[in-house]
């Protein structure tokens, strides 16, 4: 795992002018004529650099402003939300909307639904994908390639293609309006295939020496996997965990197909239900519920962003 893959500010790179090379040593023939031109270029680059920073700041607005607007608007009373000229900061902050979030719907229950479903899917996917990835990478059992290709078909199948038959299967098993399809299908079906692929690529690249040592120490294949290979795969597992959790947390089509009672709803589905008698959205309540959904994940991201970004970059590159 190289730490220089991403621009996590290392002491060397923050030094201004470092990439342009060491200043020419006075005695050499090359440094003499090149020097004045370089200085001019560097001064121009200085200006350009600040222009680029301004450009980056402007480009940040559509990424950051919506979240800011969501959080501040959720503190505004409805009258202020509907005001023609927007207020950047709530003039008369109130938590009323947050109270309504919990009285209009069983929001705490829905929050828990999303959380425990995503947690189970994440743990299940990590386990299943690590095992399969390891076996496909390391054990040369007959038919391994054919089975791997069979599994890979899942990468080509958008969830919308199979939603009608899966709906029929779930229905005939009597599992409608339960969380089973949201837990079992992602762990074993198409959504897990990318995880299997990432784990396989990781184990293919992992040196076998440590496992050989384990074998000499008398470990069987199963023991080698649990005691040696799995602990070594922490970075790949982290990447799998992050994107699996986000995928489950974001799931929308499946819940609206499988779930029908408010007690069983997951968050994405619940967020759209804060509407008034005419079907119009109750903006302040909806934004309060949205804020409660977004801020915890965002906070975790800000604390652990290095792992997030590197994990996703690695998984993407190898996937």
């Amino acid at each position, binding site marked *: 795992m190289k730490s220089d*893959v991403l621009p996590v500010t290392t002491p060397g790179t923050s030094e201004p002018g470092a990439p342009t090379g060491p200043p020419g040593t006075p005695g050499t023939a090359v440094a003499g004529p090149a020097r004045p031109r370089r200085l001019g270029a560097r001064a121009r680059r200085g200006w350009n650099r600040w222009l680029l920073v301004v450009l980056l700041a402007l480009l940040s607005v559509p990424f950051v402003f919506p979240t800011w607007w969501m959080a501040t608007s959720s503190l505004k009373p409805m009258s202020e939300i509907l005001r023609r000229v927007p207020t950047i900061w709530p003039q008369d902050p109130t938590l009323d909307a947050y109270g309504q979030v919990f009285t209009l719907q069983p929001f705490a229950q829905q929050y828990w639904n999303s959380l425990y479903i995503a947690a189970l899917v994440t743990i299940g996917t990590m386990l299943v994908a690590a095992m399969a990835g390891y076996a496909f990478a390391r054990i040369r059992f007959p038919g391994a390639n054919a089975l791997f290709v069979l599994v890979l078909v899942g990468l080509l199948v958008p969830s919308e293609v199979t939603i009608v038959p899966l709906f029929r299967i779930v229905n005939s098993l009597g599992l409608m309006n339960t969380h089973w399809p949201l837990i079992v299908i992602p762990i074993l079906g198409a959504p897990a295939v990318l995880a299997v692929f990432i784990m396989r690529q990781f184990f293919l690249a992992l040196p076998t020496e440590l496992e050989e040592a384990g074998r000499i120490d008398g470990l069987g294949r199963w023991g080698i996997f649990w005691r040696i290979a799995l602990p070594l795969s922490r970075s790949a597992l982290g990447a799998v965990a992050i994107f699996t959790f986000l995928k489950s947390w974001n799931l929308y089509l499946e819940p609206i197909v499988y779930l029908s009672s408010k007690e069983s709803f997951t968050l994405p589905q619940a967020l759209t239900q804060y509407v008034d008698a005419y079907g119009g959205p109750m903006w302040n309540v909806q934004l309060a519920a949205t804020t409660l959904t977004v801020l915890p994940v965002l906070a975790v991201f800000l604390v652990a962003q290095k792992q997030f970004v590197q994990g996703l970059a690695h998984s993407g590159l190898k996937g």
Partner: protein
Amino acid sequence: MATVSAAVRRDWLVGYAMVAPVVLGALAFVVLPLGMVVWYSLHEWNVLANTFTFVGAENYGRMAADDGLADALLASLWFSIGLVVLNIVLALLLAVLLNQRLPGTTTFRTFFFSPVVVSLVAWTIVWSFLLQADGGINGFLAVLGVDGPNWLRHETTAMIAVIIVQVFKNVGLNMILFLAALQGVPEELQEAARLDGAGAWRRFRSITLPLISPTILLVSIITIVGSLEVFAQIDVLTGGGPGNSTTVLVYYLYQQAFRFNEFGYASAIAVLLFVIVLVLTLLQWQSRKRWVFHEV
């Protein structure tokens, strides 16, 4: 095979046991449903009357004559083109900017990436709030003296809005992938070209771009296939409207199946969607030899 020892056989058994969950899962939740969807697509299926009659290719004939489906395909086409082009260009631009070792790079990277971890429906709800006729965006435009349109109620602006919302949501992920690729471009090559008098644009076109082409290919595939699966954004932002201007293929499929109970016809559309994804992915892999500098 007769010479295989017991230990090796035991090893194989462990292997089969370890892949069993995903293999059985693939059979039960991918291969079986794929077969079922093809089977369904050959039937007229009335849920209310509980009839399921074989009609051969009738659903496919109906698809050819269905203007709604043609509109949905067109909407998908526009959406995908707009999304992929904007997404890849913006992701590359951001990655190149972040790769300049400018002050504040880490903070900006966090900004651009943060929507990726925001729940998709939450992000879409906030944008639909911003895009209302009397919402935040038009409010700020009004302060500047501009009379903004009712974004989600006009056909063109609604499509643009859906695309833009999706681009800002996910461009951070592609940006990170490009950034990692850019870091892999050797500094010496850039330096050598600089000494040969190549300008910044020339260096980017002739050195950087070819070297990161495998990543561009990968990111394009992910983005194109992802663009065909857009559902939640459409449902929350526009509900497929106004008219059917933002009813993309997947949304049309959903409406046919779960609003009109046309399961047979919806299955035929699902087969079409699968074929499109399959062809696009194969085309991308085929074309990789022509423009990708080296294999991943």
